[in-house]
């Protein structure tokens, strides 16, 4: 058993000191007096969550009506800034129609509406917390949404055996940053509720950098030559869920999607 509160206070004190002494260190530029470490690497353990509108639309957008009028303002879309470096996603010519099509059919076709696995990078910014379980070796990412999880292999890189929703995840430490190279993604997960998408040629390189006791800077570079003209990068802060006894809860959303998926096949079809 560990005295977590004690460790927490020490950790906070160390960070406070760092903040006072050198703001540049907080930007994650390295130091010998770094925050809590595990096996010599930054300790990313904890429950984290994005607090932004990336899951509604990675790009800048105004507030607007939701996908179904019956939800009223409950389903309305909050306005938000772009998390894409440079503002816009560099789609290839001829791919815009697919995104518009996705958007128009999102109430029935967004994989999130169907409770499908979220894919990478969307798993990071769906509006649910996730937990990093960092053992010293391999790292397990556990997501509240749909009980998704992925194991980040920190050993010798493995090639993707087959395409999956959450991909084949090979991690390595680059100084203060956990870098995850994600291949073998099946491309079926959308990137957001606005219908931004990629294909099974998708390759994602994620960077998790601790920039404070309760903050991670998350970056993901998205490469897919069949859909985009060049690799592009999203970035956002991730916030630690600092409330006492923060924990992931079950969000097994399959049962919330069954009427949508199977409703027309029931003996008494859902109207």
């Amino acid at each position, binding site marked *: 058993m*560990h005295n977590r509160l004690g460790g927490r206070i020490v950790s906070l004190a160390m960070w406070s000191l760092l903040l006072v002494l050198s703001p540049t260190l907080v930007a994650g530029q390295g130091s010998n007096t770094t925050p809590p470490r*595990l096996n010599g690497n930054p300790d990313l353990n904890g429950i984290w969550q994005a607090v932004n509108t990336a899951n509604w639309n990675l790009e800048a957008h105004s507030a607007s009506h939701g996908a179904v009028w019956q939800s009223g303002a409950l389903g309305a879309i909050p306005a938000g800034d772009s998390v894409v470096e440079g503002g816009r996603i560099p789609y290839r010519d001829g791919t815009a129609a697919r995104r518009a099509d996705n958007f128009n*059919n999102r109430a029935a076709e967004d994989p999130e509406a169907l409770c499908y696995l979220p894919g990478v990078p969307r798993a990071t910014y769906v509006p649910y917390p996730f937990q990093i379980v960092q053992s010293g070796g*391999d790292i397990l990412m*556990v997501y509240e949404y749909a009980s998704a999880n992925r194991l980040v292999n920190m050993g010798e890189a493995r090639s993707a055996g087959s395409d999956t929703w959450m991909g084949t995840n090979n991690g390595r430490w680059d100084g203060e940053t956990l870098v995850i190279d994600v291949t073998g993604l099946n491309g079926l997960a959308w990137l957001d509720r606005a219908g931004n998408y990629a294909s099974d040629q998708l390759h994602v390189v994620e960077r998790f950098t601790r920039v404070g006791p309760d903050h991670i800077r998350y970056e993901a570079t998205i490469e897919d030559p069949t859909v985009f003209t060049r690799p592009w990068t999203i970035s956002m802060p991730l916030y630690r869920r600092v409330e006492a*006894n923060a924990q992931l809860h079950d969000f097994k959303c399959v*049962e919330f999607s069954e009427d949508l998926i199977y409703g027309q*096949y029931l003996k*008494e079809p859902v109207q």
Partner: protein
Amino acid sequence: MSYRRIVSVVMTMAAIALLSFVGVGSAGQADDWTHPVTPWGDPDIQGLWPADKLNGVPLQRPQDFGERDTLSDDEFEERLVYAERQLEIDSAELASRRPLIGRGGRFLECDDDPARCRDGVRIGPPNYWDERGVPNRLASLVVDPPDGRIPPLTPEARQAADERNAARRARPCTGTEIGCADSYEDFNLWNRCISRGVTSLWPGGYNKGNQIIQAPGVVAIRNEMIHETRLVWLDGREPPPPNVVSYMGYSVGHWEGNTLVVETTNLNGIATIGGAQHSDQFVMVERFSRVAEEMLHYEATMTDPLTWTAPWTVALPLELDPSYDIYEYACHEANYFLYDALTGARTLEARDATAQ
């Protein structure tokens, strides 16, 4: 999902050897083995512990065994022969392949992809879907009570179960070979890809992978089946209030020596355990003991005074297998079983309506 299911004599012998090893418990540890420790000082029980060396072991023991908990040589030989026959059947190559899921979760009709249908009916999964694992000498997973049988239900629980069953039988429904198929609610949680419940670590038909990953203050138990993870908190926290319930419940744990003791409560009672619908009084206490570098002794005791007349305990030997691959089981994302059952029943209804 692993495709290693060769029932070789070597592996069988290894399983027997390991079982007798577990039989003598921690006293059987090699003298030069010391329990591994995590960088932060907890006993280290991390690794891949698939429940795939338990082929043929039923949950409950056949009644004629009495308190005998292992098979005789002849009985074990029979189990081996059966496993070999099963393997031959499982390995038979079938022509069918599963059709792809349509865009946006829409299922492709047979007409969309006639090459993957026979007589207008979608083809089922091939037998190699199942992973039986290596046969084992154990007579049952239940080890307590000593006769290996789950204790009787309380009279109240028995009556409630009978009433539920009677109501189910009395309800008119469109029957298929697999029972009612009026709605997805006619199918169990596993068929619906919702959850295998808190006993997901116990051996099932396939996807027997289990992985334990530890971090300071928390242990993650990852199950391959339906990609579920239980997070066991070791920081002394209490579970949420009783009105907060879920399929996997809430788990808190502590170390007793090198044994991880996990208590799970707050289950929603929808999943059955040992075939019974339990009450909100249900508590499961699990004990994970690494008795050798490559052997984890697992025990789970189920207590629910409103359901069973006594607590009962399951024990599993779990062998470390770093070569085991946990594959992503995106179960719900292409659940053709449910689609086929529902559309099949609607087709039968339409046919019957035409016939009348």
